[in-house]
């Protein structure tokens, strides 16, 4: 709040270019048959893009530690949702017959 960080526009253009390249990459990867890795690859690229947006466009990279705590906390809570839900999906078939 006390000081505002001025980011050179060059940074924004670079990030934008990277995001666009990643979009291109996603499309290209979609044409490859990676089996189970298809989803993994698409999600990995998407997460990478999201992190870039959060860090640079949302200025979290230049923000206070408390902001970092809030962002990491939010991501961690999403992790709880995904991880505990997956305990169900991954083990649902165990020990069942037929």
């Amino acid at each position, binding site marked *: 709040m006390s000081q505002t960080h001025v980011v050179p526009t060059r940074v924004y253009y670079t990030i934008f270019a990277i995001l666009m390249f990643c979009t291109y990459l996603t499309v290209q990867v979609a044409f490859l048959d990676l089996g189970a890795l298809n989803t993994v690859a698409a999600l990995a690229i998407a997460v990478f893009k999201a992190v870039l947006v959060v860090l640079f466009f949302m200025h979290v990279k230049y923000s206070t530690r*408390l902001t970092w705590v809030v962002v990491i*906390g*939010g991501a961690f*809570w999403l992790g*709880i*949702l995904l991880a*505990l*839900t997956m*305990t*169900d*999906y*991954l*083990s*649902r078939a*165990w*020990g069942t017959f037929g």
Partner: protein
Amino acid sequence: MQTTVAALPPRHYLNDGFGIRSWLFTRDHKRIALLYLATITLFFFIGGAMAVLIRLELATPAGDLVTDETYNKLFTMHGVMMVFFFLIPSIPATLGNFLVPLMIGAKDLAFPKLNLLSWYIFVVGGLFTLYALISGGVDTGWTFYTPFSTISSTSKVVPTALGVFITGFSSILTGLNFIVTIHRMRAPGMTWFRMPLFLWSIYATSLIMVLGTPVIAITILLVAAERLFHFGFFDPAVGGDPVLFQHLFWFYSHPAVYIMVLPSMGVVSEVVAAFCRKPVFGYRIVAFASVAIAVLGFLVWAHHMFVAGISVYAAMIFSVLSMLVAIPSAVKVFNWTATMYRGSISWQTPMLYAMGFIGLFTIGGLTGVFLATLAVNVHVTDTYFIVAHFHYIMVGGALMGYLGGLHYWWPKISGRLYPEFLAKLSAGIIFLGFNLTFFPQFVAGYLGMPRRYHAYPPDFQVLNVLSSAGASILGVGYLIPMAYLMWSLRYGRAAGSNPFGAVGLEWMTTSPPPTENFATTPVVAWDAYDYKGEVEGRVA
């Protein structure tokens, strides 16, 4: 106990501007609290009317008063109204809004306009839901389970879902406002560990609101989208999974129980300290227990899904995690009891409600441990045992705390005293009516009476008649405070700034407080509940 001249101060937030505009455009947290109070009271009585009809129907085994379809709509609307439009906003939006700035020695919340906005959002969400109610109603249960809600139901699912979705934003904004206010606006000397425990519980509640509400909002939107456009999130025919809905729904809706009950726990801490004239035993442990309940509450949701076809291994994990919540909850109950030990207890109305909370919450909490146990859960799932359990938490716990808090701070809010005898009487009536309504439901449920049916085997009639009789007593118990609190607004004796002789910044300004709360920013040099210091003159 009370030395100030008993007359209202010449200038206070209630006479600082008159007319409808001065209320609808106010940015004063105290006035916004009253706007919320009026709104949720309306929703409480709408939800209560549904409950009356439900209990009337169940007075006889035959489904003779309303059709099965109408009955489905009644319990759905009862749940939606009570959960989303009364219990979740109840303490945070009224007492929280009123007290957070007062208790930390601030002039207002961090974002006063955002605060007003969240009330408007709440009203818009409520209007959507009322529209759904009037234009035909919803029959999915307040839980909106798929595939019924997305494929089968022909009722007004979409407007209700939108209503709940919109209201979620009001909850998020309120939580955000409280978090920022508590972080940034504390008066000099008001350290984290000098804060009243009510604020710790409101802080923990706000964390749940901010972290959990987006999930339910999106989930309910997905239901509406799937209904309208036939996406495949939850429909197995197009690759979805109906159980996924339950995961997402309960990820919020279990912690939502703590949105309802944590603030009540905060009220109980304040009230027990004030009426035993002692600091709360183990202050820090109670403070951390609030945060622990908020965090652990996010790790237990699948205990609502043990018979829904989830993995047994996941069920075991969730069963064990669910029991962990009992630890911080029990810490609180034991610490309140230890606070009362050798305290000089005065049995005024708020204390009666606090005692009611402690007893009823303990019953509700312990039956929760039964339900967390896998084998017992299978036996009682979807029976009245569940209904009894969560009403002990939500009505016996959350609502008792709300009423206790409303009575405790009513002299501060209105500047006037309510008639103590009537208040004690209605507290007794509510306690009696509550137990008569819901205890028989434990028995009926254990014997196998399923929930959500408008007819039942005649064997259960005695228990149901008891329950319906209790509900009528309970209803009277709610109408009496409604009447005398309204009466006191005009005719009550002036309360003076600190009618209970309590310690806390909110008692160090006039009743009702001026718009800016404090003439000069207070400087805090004492711990919360420093009743010894009050006697020795350390508390300024």
